[in-house]
């Protein structure tokens, strides 16, 4: 079966005055039709840059995709001309951004911002587009949708704006929706609503979703598989239940340990990941997580591990994944965690 989207060895660099930033270091993943993938990692792990590279939205200069392929619909998106790529953007692959306060243009009406993509990609006139915009807005749960098309972003709350952002992204029936931390800037109660909304829309429309987050908890209910990124590498990838139950990378384990668990049977202290994220200016020669890893041995400092299968559909880039998995299982038993 061919995949809907196939990213192979994608590598993105930023050429700055301080040196070359190794933002994305050869990541590979696939996405099937209607499937949803969570990309998890801390700030600076390259998760946003990774999807912006797929969209061809890396600002150049200073950034550039230096290697890899992004196969979509039998074509390598990285080889498309700018105008060919514009027909993919917003039409085949659409995006929702992190901060709804800044990702909408403050001086244009919501109607104008919603219709411009439809007029461009669906070749419909403004009136039809406005009608469809109103339908989309009520689909994402905005009351009085038709009346609000002439309003400006500052007349909406943060959660409402993110709903607008989602409606906007879905306006041209994309086959892939990329959501770049769409709930990070929102209140916790609103976060849950937005996650729910996307889940519902995904079932209804059937598009594939790439959901980027730094919060392993958020994606658990939403996605089918997860890729964990660290320092521009995918360090572990697995179906979501497998990842929670058979965690096989020290970093993923660290992320889980630092997550509070409300329904834990015994009280468990949160364990932070020690140390700081790596300096992306240095070319990675050893395992990037080694300086912060409690399992690190000499081998980790000599050779950067690549992704290796540890179970069916489960890959980990760690020399000592078995030790990490053992501890993960141990932890699971003590707190009775169910993913």
């Amino acid at each position, binding site marked *: 079966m061919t995949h809907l989207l196939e990213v192979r060895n994608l590598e993105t660099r930023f050429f700055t005055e301080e040196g070359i930033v190794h933002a994305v270091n050869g990541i590979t993943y696939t996405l099937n039709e209607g499937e949803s993938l969570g990309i998890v990692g801390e700030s600076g792990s390259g998760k946003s840059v990774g999807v912006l590279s797929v969209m061809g939205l890396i600002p150049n200069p200073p950034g550039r995709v230096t290697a890899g392929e992004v196969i979509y619909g039998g074509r390598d998106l990285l080889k498309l001309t700018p105008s060919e790529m514009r*027909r993919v*953007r917003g039409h085949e692959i659409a995006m929702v*951004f992190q*901060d709804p306060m800044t990702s909408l*243009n403050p001086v244009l009406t919501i109607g104008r911002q919603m219709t*411009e993509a439809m007029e461009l990609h669906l070749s419909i006139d403004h009136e039809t587009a406005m009608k469809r915009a109103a339908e989309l807005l009520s689909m994402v749960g905005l009351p009085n949708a038709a009346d609000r098309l002439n309003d400006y972003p500052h007349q909406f709350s943060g959660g409402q704006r993110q709903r607008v952002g989602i409606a906007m992204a879905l306006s041209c029936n994309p086959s892939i929706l990329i959501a770049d931390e769409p709930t990070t800037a929102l209140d916790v109660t609103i976060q849950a609503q937005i996650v729910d909304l996307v889940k519902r829309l995904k079932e209804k429309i059937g598009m594939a979703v790439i959901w980027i987050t730094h919060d392993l908890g958020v994606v658990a209910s939403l996605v089918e598989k997860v890729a964990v990124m660290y320092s521009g590498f995918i360090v572990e990838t697995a179906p979501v239940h497998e990842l929670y139950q058979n965690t096989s990378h020290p970093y993923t384990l660290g992320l889980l340990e630092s997550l509070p668990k409300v329904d834990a049977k015994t009280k468990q202290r949160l364990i932070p990941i020690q140390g700081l994220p790596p300096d992306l200016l240095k070319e990675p020669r050893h395992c990037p997580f080694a300086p912060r890893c409690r399992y690190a041995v000499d081998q980790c400092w000599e050779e950067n591990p690549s992704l290796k299968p540890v179970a069916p559909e489960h890959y980990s880039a760690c020399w000592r994944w078995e030790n990490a998995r053992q501890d993960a299982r141990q932890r699971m038993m003590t707190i009775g965690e169910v993913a």
Partner: protein
Amino acid sequence: MTAYIIRRLLILPVIMIGVTMLIFAMMQFLGPVERSALYIRDFPKTQGQIDAVIRRYGLDDPFLVQYWHWLVGKEDPETGELLGGILRGDLGFSRTGREPVIDLLKRRLPVTAELALVSMLPIVVIGIWLGMQAALHHNEPIDQGARVFAILGYSFPTFVFGLLVLLIFYAKLNWFPPGRLSTQFSLEVTRPGFENYTRFLTLDALLNLRFDIFMDALRHMVLPVVTLSYLSWALLLKVTRSSMLEALRQDYVTTARAKGLSERVVTNRHVRKNALIPVATIAGSTVASLFNGVVITETIFDIPGLGSAAAAAALSLDVMTMLAYALFTAFLFVSVNLLVDVMYAVLDPRVRLG
């Protein structure tokens, strides 16, 4: 939007009262005797004349009474004739101009206004347009050139720049002479047969179908226009460039690109309007400051406008003319600020809709 503009307009008289009161208060630094001297042309002035003038114009009345009289005029205690009153257009007598100040304004204002209006063209084209291009081609040659140009513009004082271009383009090359017109035409435009429709020389020349006079007037305007406006080019270029760069970095620009819009649409629809909001502020004060720049520019290039009149008045302590000039610039600043506020409302819905 209309309500917003009406609110702004209603504030205008309040501001004008404040401004005129301030200007009038400055005049009060002179005592009644000193001020009376402004009304007496004889020299030496006698005590009797002074007392008569003080009585006639009420120069020792309380401040607010005098201010009121200054605004609406005062009856002569002997003849019952209404004297003064800036609201009636009586701004006093200009000693340096040897005519009533209001006549001087009427004659000289169009000259200065024409100069300032023509100066706006290069300000918009060079300042704003080049600033946008520089931002869109960040760190490319056009951007580097624009930056060097802006720094040069900043660092040249107007009087040095004016004399320098006069030296090069008039004294050495004789391309652009000073004054308003060449000698053969300057007589012709005062004779019957040349109608002064607008008192703007270039426009009148066109309306009289005298293209030779039009070209001559334009030729004379090149150096003053450049001298008057280069500082504003530099300033607006800098502001436009940086606010464009700022707007280009915003998240909503990435959103717009993610929709598949072309760079042209992204710039024209999403970036430009946002970038122009700060530019409107600067453009407003720039236009107003043009009217201060004319003092030096008109003096250097021997142009009979408001600026050179103000300079002459200042040099010989001609208080009436100075006051009129101060009133005029104050009024101009207030109106331009009003215009900027309206522009904000047009550009930014957050202002318009509160």
